[in-house]
């Protein structure tokens, strides 16, 4: 008992276990260190690459229009606007259709059909971006050009400035539609999971009040699952902001602010992909990386938001570890 004090010191060391465990801990921690260093490196390198343009154009880069590689005058406003338009356009489109599809799967379809339909829609997630781009460029865009866009131009164009464009096929409209299809599986899958998690007694409580099925679905079940649904939309938004190649193939390309839904333009990601191999000067390259930096900051903010949103939601359902 009196010898307690000196005994406490070696105790700490031995508690850590044998040599195998020490090597194991060092190895795993080294891996974590390498990975975190890579993550930090990505930020550093992007800032480093953008630095000449940041120094030259400052924050004004974000609010100026104009993209002139010859005179080295660059402003990213059209791409920022393009990114927001395309991402939100696609998110709302896919959000509406995706949520309704999820409701149809969980509330309307018979049980034996729920699995197969969910599986088929999840298949959409397996198709690579470039294949969506291919379909958008070679099928959807020509189709829009010959039918929908002609009709819009002739019938809506004279009345609304926003529809008064030329039918190119490729452009904002194609990009938004293709991106919306790409977001569908994400939104359907996550919304469906949120709807399925609504407890049975919540549903039955609604029916016990004598409500019609539709009122139970829209008045009780969907609001109950709203955290999951909002989470799926935010995750979809994150995806949409960063989608590169499918958008690059369908948006056409352009350096000015869009005026109509049929205009061509660029998003932050697609301008890098399409212009990167055309780069003629260091400042041009740096301006593109500056676009990348803006994109990185936006997506990180959205994803951190989504992380906390989804975590809070899963915690509420009690399966948080």
């Amino acid at each position: 008992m009196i010898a307690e004090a000196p005994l406490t010191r070696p105790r700490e060391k031995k508690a850590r276990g044998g040599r195998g465990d020490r090597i194991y801990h060092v190895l795993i921690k080294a891996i974590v260190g390498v990975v975190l260093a890579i993550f930090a490196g990505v930020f550093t390198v992007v800032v480093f690459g953008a630095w000449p343009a940041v120094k030259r154009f400052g924050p004004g880069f974000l609010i100026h229009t104009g993209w002139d590689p010859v005179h080295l005058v660059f402003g990213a406003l059209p791409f920022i606007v393009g990114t927001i338009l395309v991402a939100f356009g696609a998110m709302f489109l896919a959000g509406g259709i995706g949520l309704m599809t999820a409701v149809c799967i969980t509330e309307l379809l018979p049980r034996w059909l729920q699995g197969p339909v969910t599986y088929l829609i999840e298949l959409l997630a397996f198709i690579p971006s470039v294949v969506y781009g291919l379909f958008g460029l070679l099928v959807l865009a020509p189709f829009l050009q010959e039918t929908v866009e002609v009709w819009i131009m002739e019938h809506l164009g004279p009345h609304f400035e926003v529809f008064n464009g030329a039918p190119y096929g490729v452009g904002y409209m194609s990009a938004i539609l293709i991106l919306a299809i790409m977001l569908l599986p994400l939104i359907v899958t996550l919304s469906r999971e949120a709807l399925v998690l609504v407890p049975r007694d919540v549903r039955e409580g609604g029916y016990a009040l004598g409500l019609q099925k539709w009122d139970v679905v829209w008045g009780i079940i969907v609001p109950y699952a709203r955290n999951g649904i909002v989470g799926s939309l935010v995750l979809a938004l994150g995806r949409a902001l960063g989608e590169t190649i499918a958008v690059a193939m369908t948006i056409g390309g352009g350096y000015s602010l869009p005026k109509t839904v049929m205009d061509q333009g660029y998003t932050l990601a697609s301008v890098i992909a399409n212009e990167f191999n055309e780069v003629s000067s260091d400042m041009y390259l740096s301006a593109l990386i500056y676009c990348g930096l803006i994109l990185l900051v936006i997506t990180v903010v959205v994803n951190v938001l989504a992380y906390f949103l989804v975590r809070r939601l899963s915690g509420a359902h009690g399966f948080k570890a």
Partner: protein
Amino acid sequence: MASKHKTSSRTGNWRKWRGVLGFGLTGVATLISLGALFSILGYLIHQGIGAINWNFIVREPAAVGEAGGGIAPSLLGTLILVSISMVVGIPLGIGVGIYLSEIAGGTRFASVARIAINTFIGVPSIIMGIFVYFILVKPTNTFSAIAGGLALGIIMIPIIARTTEDVLRLVPKSIREAGLAIGAPKWRVTFDLVLPAARAGVITGGILAVARVAGETAPLILTALGNEYYPTSLFKPIDEITLRILKYARGPYDVWHQQAYGAALILVFGVALGSLLLRLSTRDHDALSR
């Protein structure tokens, strides 16, 4: 009395029709979702099947605009790039997953690492391309297979890390305690007991990550670049199937367009088939972890 009865039956009717209309709309939405899938897959098969033949798989691309030729270098390049990415992504990803689930617990550092992982899953892949361009392509003055594979591997890391952490956490705590209680050191508990119990899930996560990077194009534009020939060195530009699809889709020739569909069909079915086979091969071991 009579009039009251009438109004209530009218609102009843309206509610009924509203339900029919509402559910009808959800049905239409589902048809649109399924229609998108079937039109893309259908078009791919319809247009692409004609391009696929033996020569398409084993030959090099023909001269510009000419008929014939194949995508053999792209297929080979894809295999090489995906292999490099696996060498980078799998050990690092699984290592981080093990750290988060088995070692870190609820420490502050662990939650920072967890947020970093989840954030990086959402960082656009082209950003990884920019990173590798500056650390590898620019210093060596050449686009290369190594650079492309590294970019894809970095994209894999957070995906594998997250799925690994998730499935390891599903392994009951009691298995770990039982292992420790018979005197097994922690590293043996992790590798002999926990990982085997979660084997099916770890492999599925790996497949998802590989499938995801096999379809990546954007970072390769900045790193692997693509070319027309069989790969000869890991330190030279290399072709890859999505780069080939991109090039052919954007070209002006119908032959190219058809070959783009053919390549896309091979890519989609390759990814689907690969995942299916791997999943089937792990199924019988699955029973043990139940």
